[in-house]
């Protein structure tokens, strides 16, 4: 993607109109105001020993500088936005693309709780099977083989070789039973 042209043809009608950058400029100014308002409540009070602070530095100083930075830069972006020629690529998204992204994001969000409740291997197999089919793969045998083999391999690499934790059910249970038998 070519970089945005900040200098050329700054006076076009298109550029003079409010655009998504102007909106973001405004949003950052609003964020600055909100931050400055909540800073006193959102920073724990420093410990007072013998009626004096441990040092003279106010804990709110740096956060306040960041908040002021948002405000100043937000104003800069607002005014700059009229001369920036960038395209909001979200507006160019067609319905199938929005559906694909939404479904993928939803699957990702559900994958977390699913992994914790049914275990890494089962949740991953379900996710791989679903997404692969959704993306258009119709070789079900290959999908099934990969959906089982890869999560099982990953489970062993992470839990046995790297000694970390992944939600085990049902693999560990099955293996424990086999071992006991």
């Amino acid at each position: 993607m070519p970089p945005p042209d900040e200098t050329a043809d700054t006076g076009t009608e298109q550029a003079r109109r409010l655009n998504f950058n102007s909106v973001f400029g405004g949003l950052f100014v609003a964020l600055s105001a909100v931050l400055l308002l909540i800073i006193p409540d959102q920073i724990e009070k420093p410990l007072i020993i013998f009626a004096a602070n441990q040092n003279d530095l106010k804990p709110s100083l740096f956060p306040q500088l960041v908040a002021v930075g948002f405000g100043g830069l937000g104003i800069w972006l607002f005014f700059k936005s009229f001369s920036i020629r960038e395209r909001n690529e979200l507006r160019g998204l067609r319905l199938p693309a929005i559906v694909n992204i939404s479904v993928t994001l939803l699957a990702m969000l559900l994958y977390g709780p699913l992994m914790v409740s049914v275990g890494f291997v089962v949740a991953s197999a379900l996710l791989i099977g679903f997404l692969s089919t959704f993306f258009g793969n119709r070789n079900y045998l290959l999908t099934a083989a990969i959906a089982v083999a890869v999560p099982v391999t990953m489970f062993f690499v992470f839990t046995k070789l790297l000694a970390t934790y992944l939600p085990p059910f049902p693999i560990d249970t099955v293996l424990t039973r086999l071992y006991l038998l």
Partner: protein
Amino acid sequence: MWDSFIQGLELAMRWDTFAMMSVGLILGMFVGALPGFTTVMAMAILLPLSFFLDPLIGIPFLLGVYKGGIYGGSIPAILVSMPGTGAAVATTFDGPALTKKRKARKALEIALYSSVFGDLSSDIVTILFIGPIALIALMFGPPELMAILFLALIVISATSSGVFVKGLLMMCLGLFLGLVGQDPIGALSRFTFDIFAFRAGIPLLPMLIGVYALPEILIAVENKTVGVIRQNIRAREGGRLTFAEFRGCFRSICRSTMIGTGIGMIPGLGQVVAAFMGYAAAKNASKTPEEFGKGKLEGVAAAEAANNAVNGPTLVPLLTLGIPGDNITVILIGAFIAQGMRPGPQLMVEQGPLVFAILVAMVFANLLFLVIGYFAIPLFALVVTIRRSILLPLTVVFAFAGSYVTRSDPLDLVILALFGAFGYLAKKLSFDVTPMVMAFILGKELEYSFGQTMVLAQGNLLNYVFLERPITAVILVATPVLSFLLWRKSKRMRAEFAVDDVG
């Protein structure tokens, strides 16, 4: 420094270091050879693996992914005119034309040899430079460190893809996200919004994987990924590269190596710009410039030597000052921090042998790179045809598993998905996430050195900085000037070469 180097050399001689580096190289080449899968994405996803390995295994493993990934991008660029990574775009000028002339094998081999030469030479330069720069950095106190960190953040914002002010806003956002948790001076809780999990701050790993790996997946799924390259892959076609042909390209390889090495030390420019500059320089210097773009081996060699020569020098500002120069080194800094190695002036003093061991391992990685590349080129050529409808779900699983294992906290998975969505939106709205991630990583250190400077200044910061700390004053005064110059240079290069991002 010499003692540290010798100790580092001894430390690096481990079979497991070499073994994992080879695995990293193979994985890097594999991912690099997949069109649409970037090196940044591969490193973000494989980052958690390095956390649980010894530093001398984990970090060389990631460096292997880095080197392999940058080279791997040239394989589809040559064979099917689809750059596997951004760094390989310049390789598409001559690579596919060589394939059409039934010289694919020569093109792949010259890409390999020039990549190895560029990478190896720049790694040696890195080892030579890192000691003296570290010695200078050691003279810095908190005010100088504060000024350097501030300069680094502004420069990265200035050289990020997109508009300068948007880069600065993303930097502020990163600083704000870094405020969540505890303040680094008084350990006071802040911006936790009474959520207990936020008391430890926002975790780095889900953020890194979220903003660097998941948006690539979401962009790939905009159009369903059933498509697979059905073109016949002709990696074995044509004769092998002769020594005379290599010698014919040697001047261009050396020139590109110098260009890449210089670019690597400047934050924010990266492999893409280096590849284009190397290619343009080779074309300008050639007696037959009209042959460039029509299948000239020298074109492939120039681009590949330049983009690989960036790999080593990007570590100089990272290891000596703690400043990552681009999105790949941002991920590397995550690996260093996880290993208990805080990049910065003190690192060379506290863990000098380990740092040199990692650098020496990088040099050896190039030799492995040569061997693996030589034997595995036809195999990696087949990778180009793998169905993305299968690879993308596997990438999602790897990203989530990697995020989960570090803290075993389900909240990290939610944070990962949220940062993934955020990264996607940011990309679509032309906000570069790299200044945000850098500010998030460096913010605590900036705040800490700022606090120390304020205490040292006893309330009179300007007098203290300008009268008692001349180096700090020079850096602070130079910040807007340097930022402007680098912004202008970066903007001109990006416009000239129509590039957007690295990796």
